[in-house]
C-alpha cells in the first residue's frame, strides 16, 4: 500500500470503532431491506434513506474525531441555548397538529427538543464531572432541577414521548453518577403514589393512549387502530414470517406509519419470531460494545455521557418495539437505525460518534 493511501486510510479509520461500525452497518442494511418492503418497493424513498445513512455516517466520523474535552466545554453553552430555544417555543412556537413543537428561526424551523436529547445528558455529565470530588445530595437535587425544567417545557408542548425519553436519559446519568439507593427507593415509592396526580395533569389524548393500551379494542378505529393493526401484523408473522415483501398487513396498507414509527411491524410480519430474535441480538451486540466502551471510559464525564448515549439508544429501541407489539402506549419514537427519517439517524450516529471518540481518545489522554 502506498504511504499516501495508508495515511488516508489511517486518517479515516483512526477514531472509528470496528465493532460498533459493523453492528451499525448491519442494522442499517436491515433497515434498508425492510424499508424497501414497507414502501412497496419505492426505490426513490429507499435510496433517499441510503443518502440519509451516508450523511449520518459522515456525522459519526466527524464526532468520532472530536476529542471529548471539546464536548465538555460545549456542554453548558449548548444546554443554555437548548433551554432558551425551548422557552422560545413555549412563547412563540408554531402549532403543528395541535402541538407547539417548532420554532421559526429565519429561513427554517427547528424542533429544539431534538437538541435537548443530546444537550441534557451532556450537561448533566459535565455537571457531575465538575463536582466529582465532593458529590453531595445538593448536587443531585440541582441535577434533578436541570433535568426537570426542560422536560416540563417539552411535556407542555405537548410531546410526552420525547419528554419521557429525555427524562430517561437524564435519569440514567443521575443513576450512574451514584445517586444513593435510599433516595432511589424513596423516589420510587413517591413516584408510584403520585401516579394519580400525574393522571390528572395529563392531556386527554395522552390518557386515551394509556387507556387504549390497556384495551385497544375500546377504540378500534381511533387511537386503538395503530396498536391493533401492528399487533395483528406481528402475531400473524409467526415463527418464520410471511417472507420479505409478502406481508399482507404491510402491502395492503393496514399498518399505519409503516415506514417510520411502525416499521418494526413490517419487519416482524415478514421475518417472524426468528427475525425478531436476530434483530434483538444485533441491538444487543451494539449495546454490549457500547457498554464496554462506557465501562472503560477514562473520566466521569465520558463515562456518564457514554452511559447516557448507550442507555438512550436502548430505550428508543425498547420503547419502539414495545409500542409496536402492544405493551407500551403509542408514542412517536422511531426504531433507531431502522425507521425512515434523517433526523433520527443523524442524532443516533452522532451519539455513536461520541462513543467512538471517547474510546479512541482515552489513550491519547493517558499518554
Amino acid at each position, binding site marked *: 500500500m502506498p504511504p499516501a493511501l495508508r495515511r488516508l486510510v489511517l486518517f479515516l479509520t483512526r477514531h472509528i470503532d470496528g465493532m460498533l461500525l459493523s453492528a451499525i452497518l448491519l442494522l442499517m442494511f436491515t433497515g434498508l431491506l425492510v424499508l424497501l418492503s414497507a414502501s412497496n418497493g419505492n426505490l426513490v424513498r429507499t435510496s433517499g434513506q441510503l443518502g440519509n445513512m451516508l450523511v449520518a455516517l459522515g456525522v459519526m466520523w466527524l464526532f468520532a474525531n472530536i476529542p471529548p474535552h471539546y464536548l465538555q466545554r460545549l456542554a453548558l453553552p449548548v444546554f443554555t441555548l437548548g433551554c432558551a430555544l425551548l422557552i422560545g417555543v413555549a412563547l412563540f412556537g408554531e402549532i403543528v397538529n395541535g402541538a407547539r413543537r417548532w420554532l421559526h428561526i429565519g429561513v427554517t424551523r427547528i424542533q429544539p427538543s431534538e437538541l435537548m436529547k443530546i444537550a441534557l445528558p451532556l450537561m448533566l455529565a459535565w455537571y457531575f464531572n465538575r463536582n*466529582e470530588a465532593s458529590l453531595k445530595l445538593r448536587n443531585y437535587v440541582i441535577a434533578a432541577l436541570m433535568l426537570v425544567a426542560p422536560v416540563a417545557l417539552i411535556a407542555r408542548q405537548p410531546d410526552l414521548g420525547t419528554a419521557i425519553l429525555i427524562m430517561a436519559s437524564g435519569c440514567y446519568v443521575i443513576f450512574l453518577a451514584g445517586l444513593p439507593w435510599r433516595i432511589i427507593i424513596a423516589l420510587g415509592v413517591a413516584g408510584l403514589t403520585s401516579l394519580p396526580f400525574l393522571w390528572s395533569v395529563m392531556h386527554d389524548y395522552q390518557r386515551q393512549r394509556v387507556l387504549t393500551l390497556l384495551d385497544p379494542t375500546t377504540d378500534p378505529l381511533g387511537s386503538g387502530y395503530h396498536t391493533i393493526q401492528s399487533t395483528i401484523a406481528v*402475531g400473524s408473522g409467526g415463527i418464520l414470517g410471511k417472507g420479505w415483501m409478502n406481508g399482507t398487513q404491510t402491502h395492503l396498507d393496514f399498518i399505519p406509519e409503516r415506514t417510520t414509527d411502525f416499521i418494526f411491524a413490517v419487519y416482524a410480519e415478514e421475518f417472524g*419470531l426468528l427475525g425478531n430474535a436476530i434483530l434483538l441480538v444485533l441491538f444487543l451486540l451494539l449495546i454490549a460494545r457500547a457498554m464496554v466502551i462506557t465501562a472503560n471510559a477514562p473520566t*466521569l464525564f465520558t463515562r456518564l455521557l457514554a452511559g447516557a448515549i448507550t442507555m438512550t439508544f436502548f430505550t428508543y429501541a425498547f420503547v419502539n418495539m414495545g409500542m409496536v407489539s402492544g405493551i407500551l402506549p403509542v408514542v412517536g419514537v422511531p426504531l433507531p437505525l431502522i425507521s425512515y427519517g434523517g433526523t433520527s439517524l443523524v442524532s443516533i450516529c452522532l451519539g455513536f460518534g461520541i462513543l467512538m471518540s471517547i474510546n479512541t481518545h482515552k489513550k491519547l489522554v493517558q499518554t
Partner: protein
Amino acid sequence: MSDLSINPGIEIRDSERELQRFRGRLAILGIFLLSLFGLLLLRFFYLQVIQHGHYSTLAEANRISIQPIAPHRGIIVDRNGVQLAHNYSAYTLEITPSKVPDLNATIDELAEVVEITPRDRRRFRKLLEESKRFESLPIRTRLSDEEISRFAAHRYRFPGVEAKARLFRQYPQGEMFSHVVGHIGRINQKEVEKLESEDRLANYRGSDYIGKTGLEQSYEKFLHGTTGVEEVEVDSGGRAVRTLSRTPPVSGNNLVLNLDAKLQEIAYNAFGERRGALVAIDPTTGGVLAFVSKPGFDPNLFVDGIDPQSWGELNGSIDKPLLNRAAAGTYPPGSTFKPFMALAALFYGKRTPQQAISDPGFYMFGGHRFRDDKVGGHGMVDMYKSIVVSCDTYYYVLANDLGIDPISRFMAMFGFGSRTGIDIGGESAGILPSSEWKMRRFKQKWYPGETISVGIGQGYNSYTPLQLASAMATLANDGVMFRPHIVNYVEDIRTLEKSLIEPKPLRDLALKPEHLKVIKDSLIGVNKEGTSARVFADAPYVSGGKTGTAQVIAIKQNEKYVESRVAERHRDHALFIAYAPADKPTIALAVIAENSGFGARAAAPVARQVLDYYLLGKVPRKPAETDD
C-alpha cells in the same frame, strides 16, 4: 485535561473505587436492559407462537373480503317463447350518499354532464328515504354510450358517484301483462325480515331486487337463483386488489307459461276503451291461457322505484289500474249464474228439464215484486228456454224452492266464494251467501226474500272473474275441476330440466252426464238462438255461452233501468262466460266489461274475438264492437 492530573496518588485510588462503583451501576443497567429485552422476546413469543393462529385469522379477515355475486334472474316466457320478462345489461349512474358531502350540489353538477330529469330526482329522493346512507342508489338508469363516456371524462369531479353495469329487468309487453307477470322492486325492510325468518337472507346478499307482485312474487324462489361468492383481497381502504377464489352464481330458473301472449294481446285490445277483465282457461288442465285486467299499468316504472308523481297518478286514478280485476275484483255474476242454478236444480232433483213455468214477467214474494227483464214475461219457460232467453222469473221461483243453503253448498263445489289457488297472490275469495255467512257477517238471520235475487246472480253474490272462468271450465270439463295455473313448467337453464306444474284434478264433482248434457245444450243454445246468438252468428265452431248483467246500483222497485239516464260509472257491468268447441272444449272463459250494459252487447264480442283467435287463429282488425 489538566484538572484530572493535579493530584495523583489518592485521587487515582479514589477514582479506582469510583470506577468500580460506576461499573457496578452500569452492570445493574445491563441487567435491567437484558430483562426488558427478555420481556420483549416473551411478548414476541406470545404473539407469534402462542397467539399466532388468532392473529393469522385476523390478518386474513383484514385481507379477504367475501363479495356476493348476484345471479341472473330467470326470464318469463309465454307458451310460444315470447318474452314477458327479461334482463338486459345497461349502465346506471349510482350515488353512495355517505360519500357525498352535498347531494343536491352533486346532482346539479351531474345534470350538466348527463341528463337528469325532475322525475329522476323525485325517484332518487324517495329511494334515499327508504335506504341506508352507505347503499349505492341509482340516480339515472339506462345511460347511453355517449353519456357514459361523458361521465367517464368528468369522473374526477364526482367522488361517491359511480357508473355501474347492471342487469335490468324489463317487461317488454308492458301494461298488458302487468297483473299476471307482476314486477320486481327494491327489497324493503319488511321483505328483509321475511327473508331472514325463512333463512333465505344470505342468498339475497348482493341482490337489490325481489319479486313484488304477480308471478315475479309467487315464483320468487325459482326465479332468483343462487348467489355466488367471490373472495377478494382488499386493502385497508376496501379497494379490491385481486380475486382469490370464485364460486359462480347459479342463474334463476325460467318460467314457461300456459299463457298465450298473442291471445292475451287480442283479449286486451278487444276491450277497446272499456275497463274489464278476462280469464281464459284450458278446462282439461286448468292452464290459464289469458289473464287480462284492464286498464293495466307499465310495470317497468316500478323496477327502480316509482317516482311519487307517477305513483300518485296510478293510485289515484278513477280507473283503478293497480287493481287486479281478474283475481281481486269481485262482481255479482248476474245471469251467468243461471246455468249453475239450473244444474243445482237437477242435482237436488227439484226440477226436471221439461218442467215448465208460466212467466208473467214478475214474481211476487212477501208482497215484493221481483221483475223480469222482459215486460210481460217469456210465457211458458222450461229449463232450456230459461237459460237461452235468460228468464229471471224461472230462477226466482227455483231459488225459493231450493233455499239458500242448498244453493250455497252446490255453488261451493264449483269454487264460488273461495280462492281458486291460482299461482299468483292477491286473490279475493268473493262472497258466496249462505245463512251461516250472513250470521257471521251481519249477525242476522237469513230472510227467505233474500234468496230470490241470489237465484239470478244478484244480491249478496260476488265473485271474481277468475272464479267464474274456473267454474265455467269445470262445467265444460264435465265436472272435473283443475286448479288454475299460469305457469306451465319451470325450466332449469343449465340442465334444461323442466319441472312441470302438474295439472292435478282438484276434485270430480261427480255430476250426472244427463244433467250436464241439459245444461251444455242450453249454453250452446244461448250462442245459437239465445241472447248472444247475433254475436256468434257466423262462427264456424260450436260454442256454449251465457250472458250476464250485473247491477252496479240498485234500481228502485217498479223503476225501469234506462241506461242513458245513469251516469257512466253507475251503468251495469256486462258479463259473459263461454267455452268451445262444444264437443271437446279446449278453452273456457269469463269476461267482464265494466259499466258496459247488457252482457251480450259488450262482453260477448270480446269472447268471440278470443275464441276466434284461439280456435281459428283469426286476428281481429279492431277492438270488439258492441253488438247493438
